[in-house]
């Protein structure tokens, strides 16, 4: 039964983190509604949805574009002058990975928040005493490996979000140099503004990194929400990752109601401080 083949292929793609689009007819002629097919970026599609070949070629094209953009899509196509068909393109097969380099006090709450947000969480440290799965119950993988070996053990693809929070800046920088050319979705590195400025200067002069390369690095890491505790910093980091992934402004949504008026968001803190 072709329907069963399709499902088996779908479940296999999910298992193998193989990006694929499920194309399904959601409205149109009764005979077509519910028909589905799988489209991969390179490979030939599995099944079709019963539309003429020329139209199917367009649908396959749109599905591949959706995979490329990592964004579901709904399109309406003209079947003939009187009939349209509406097709939903569901992009599946590769959930985002949060790769946390450094297994210290920021990494622990970050692994929790990341798992809550449906990221596949990996934690890496070169110290076996820290890189232990009992310290990271929400992580999918915890690896104790030398930082030099990172590339051999972790995905560095465009669905990977890397957070550099090792115990020392030297390690952060070493790892950064290993991964900066990869097509990662996000690279964030912890450190104060002053420290980061110094590190960037050093990277430019000694390693000849360009401003363009460094501009990809979110450092100091996280959104400015006044975070202080490790858990708050983890939220600020995850907030930035979601901002990068979904797009957004990072502004309070309520600001739009007070257009143009700059509001102070710290009244509670100030009152508590007795200012």
């Amino acid at each position: 039964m072709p329907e069963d083949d399709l499902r088996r292929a779908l479940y296999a793609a999910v298992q193998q983190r193989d990006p694929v689009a499920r194309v399904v007819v959601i409205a149109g002629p009764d005979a077509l509604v519910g028909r589905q097919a799988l489209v991969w970026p390179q490979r030939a599609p599995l099944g079709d949805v019963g539309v003429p070949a020329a139209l199917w070629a367009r649908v396959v094209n749109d599905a591949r574009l959706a995979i490329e953009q990592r964004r579901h899509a709904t399109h309406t196509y003209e079947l003939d002058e009187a009939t349209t068909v509406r097709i939903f393109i569901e992009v599946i097969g590769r959930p985002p990975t949060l790769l946390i380099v450094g297994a210290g006090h920021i990494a622990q709450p970050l692994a929790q928040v990341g798992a809550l947000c449906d990221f596949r969480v990996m934690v890496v440290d070169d110290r076996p005493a820290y890189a232990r799965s009992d310290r990271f119950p929400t992580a999918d993988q915890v690896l104790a490996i030398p930082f030099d070996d990172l590339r051999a053990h972790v995905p560095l693809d465009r669905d990977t979000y890397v957070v550099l929070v090792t115990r020392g800046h030297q390690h952060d920088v070493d790892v950064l140099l290993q991964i900066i050319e990869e097509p990662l979705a996000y690279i964030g590195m912890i450190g104060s503004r002053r420290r980061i400025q110094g590190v960037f200067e050093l990277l430019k002069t000694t390693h000849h990194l360009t401003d363009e390369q460094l501009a990809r690095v979110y450092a100091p890491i996280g959104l400015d929400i006044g975070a202080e505790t490790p858990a708050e910093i983890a939220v600020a980091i995850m907030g930035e990752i979601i901002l990068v992934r979904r797009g957004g402004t990072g502004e309070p949504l309520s600001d739009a109601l007070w257009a143009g008026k700059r509001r102070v968001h710290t009244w509670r803190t100030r009152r508590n401080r007795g200012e």
Partner: protein
Amino acid sequence: MDDFYTVLAELEREGVPLAVATVVCVRGSVPREVGAKMVIHPYGQHVGTVGGGCGEADVIRAGMDVIHTGRPRLVQIDLTEDVTLQSLGVCGGIMDVFIEPWPPQETDDA
């Protein structure tokens, strides 16, 4: 993380007919994003959510219907009621939810 399709593959082994609901289109403010999915289970063991509340109750009802008829349906959830403190569906938007039958796979040991 528990991937939706991994959970669905496991549920399928129970051998009961299911329905799968997917948010396919949204306009305005709605509780879930395009691509949000839910399994409607004939004995009420639903998995996932397409937004909760009234809209989701409609989706579950339609899902039961899809399980019985085996025919997919496109349901529109309208959350544009006037804002009062009593009204339930006032996110301000409309979402289209596609619900398709997901019968158990035929087991062939060939």
